[in-house]
């Protein structure tokens, strides 16, 4: 079956989508050097800068979170592919400032290679950069080595708390500590219902029977652990939340931040129904739902499914989540 998407030349997808995005939010972001999305109004150079990288095709991630209070630069690669290392270095150089730069990397092989190249070059050039790797996917098991765990939607609230800390004028070490605290207390699990079409190749990124779902599916169709017959919203939420709460060791009296992130082909209706069940379970367990977000933050084209993200938070992290920001897709705080 031919691909049914509103595109032009598949070779120009990233370029064209970024041009449209920058045009739509020209008060908040601008496009530099083709693949760098930067803040429209640069942050004061005595405040720590935030840089991230990742492939395109996951809109609004990751560039949707560039703006006052979150990211300074997002380096964008081709569809589902890391940008080149030297391009990432260019972004670090552009963001470099006396206060230093926090560089957030999601654990995916290509992203990590590009980041290591960029960091080697940054070191040679004497830039003040600290890198943090997110790896909160618990599909391979909560205790699997960090190298086996992918970075999923959790990078986005991490940008939020680190970005708010940076805006307060905290030092690079302090901003890193905030990011590290969030990183060490978060977990994400994904579930897929229907595949997506890769917009460059026109091919389906995975196969899943009509009556099946798969828990643990990655954001590029990477296989998960729990393929099963389709379940109800409540059953699915129960399975996922149980594992997530265990992973972040949340117990009675703790506070959590929850995100239900639609993969692109799952309705908000379904996401709210999932959220409702999450709230019920938390209440039963005596865990406080401190804050929540429901909607599309990091998508996989028209894939149906969602990512459930849970972070154990303290008062400091809640305050940083609440601090107003001005980015196209985080929404009102």
């Amino acid at each position, binding site marked *: 079956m031919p691909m049914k998407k509103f595109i032009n030349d598949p070779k120009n997808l990233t370029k064209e989508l970024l041009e449209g995005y920058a045009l739509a939010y020209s008060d908040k972001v601008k496009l530099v050097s083709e693949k760098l999305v930067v803040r429209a109004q640069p942050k004061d150079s005595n405040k720590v800068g935030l840089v991230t990288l990742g492939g395109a095709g996951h809109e609004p991630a990751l560039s949707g979170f560039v703006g006052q209070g979150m990211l300074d630069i997002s380096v964008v690669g081709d569809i589902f592919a*890391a940008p080149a290392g030297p391009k990432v270095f260019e972004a670090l150089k552009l963001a470099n400032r006396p206060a230093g730069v926090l560089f957030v990397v999601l654990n995916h092989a290509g992203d990590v290679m590009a980041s290591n190249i960029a960091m080697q070059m940054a070191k040679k050039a004497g830039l003040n950069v600290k890198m943090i790797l997110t790896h909160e996917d618990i599909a391979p098991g909560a205790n699997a080595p960090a190298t086996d765990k992918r970075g999923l939607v959790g990078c986005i609230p991490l940008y939020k708390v680190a970005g708010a800390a940076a805006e307060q004028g905290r030092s690079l070490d302090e901003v890193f500590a905030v990011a590290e605290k969030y990183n060490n207390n978060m977990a994400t699990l994904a579930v897929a219902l229907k595949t997506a079409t890769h917009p460059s190749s026109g091919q389906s990124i995975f196969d899943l029977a009509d009556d099946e779902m798969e828990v643990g599916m990655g954001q590029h169709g990477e296989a998960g652990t729990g393929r099963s017959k389709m379940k109800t919203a409540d059953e699915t939420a129960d399975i996922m939340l149980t594992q997530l709460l265990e992973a972040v060791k949340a117990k009675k009296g703790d506070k959590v931040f929850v995100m239900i992130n639609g993969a692109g082909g799952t309705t908000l209706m379904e996401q709210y129904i999932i959220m409702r069940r999450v709230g019920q379970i938390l209440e039963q367990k005596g865990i406080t739902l401190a804050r929540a977000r429901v909607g599309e933050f990091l998508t996989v084209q028209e894939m149906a499914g969602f990512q459930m993200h849970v972070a154990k938070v303290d008062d400091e992290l809640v305050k940083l989540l609440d601090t107003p920001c001005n980015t196209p897709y985080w929404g009102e705080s």
Partner: protein
Amino acid sequence: METVGYDDVVRMIRAAAAKIHANEKLLSSLDAATGDGDHGTTICKVMDAAVAAASEQAGSISEMLDRVGWEVMCVDGGSAPPLLGSFFTGMAQGATDGGLDLAAAFQGGVKAMREHSQAQIGDKTMMDAVLPAVAACSGDSPSAALRAAADAATRGAEATKNMTAKFGRARNLGDRTIGHQDPGATSVAFMFQGFAEAINERK
């Protein structure tokens, strides 16, 4: 020592690119089985960048390889550009006053790749072709050494068919990767075949 000169290295890179271009569709279809289906496109971009960099006159072989590696790393496209870029940059280690010592160059290439990949033989990655090729690269002449390397790379790539992916994105498909030849290893085999053909032609 199997040493080749500056012009030989340029010809090796050009021949490798031609070989890979001729097999672009095959490489993409191999990738479609376990990945995005874009490996053929990416690897062609990588080789185009390598050829462009090698075609520009440099002061020495080592300077040329450094530039080739750099330009390859500048290609957008996931893991292949940093891995192959490092390989070319590392090959500069084999540069001597008399030319490029192939065995030392390829060993230097692997060493540089090791900064980014810990994959071993059997993990179903490009290392399944690279490592046997480098180990086999010896003989009475550069052309014999490259022929041995190309044959070893080809066998290594074919062997990936029965392996389960343990690295990169395909790893997540686990046993579902069995029966599919690894596209990265296949590209490397074509690259070494190109290298061998370039030096054979000289004789």
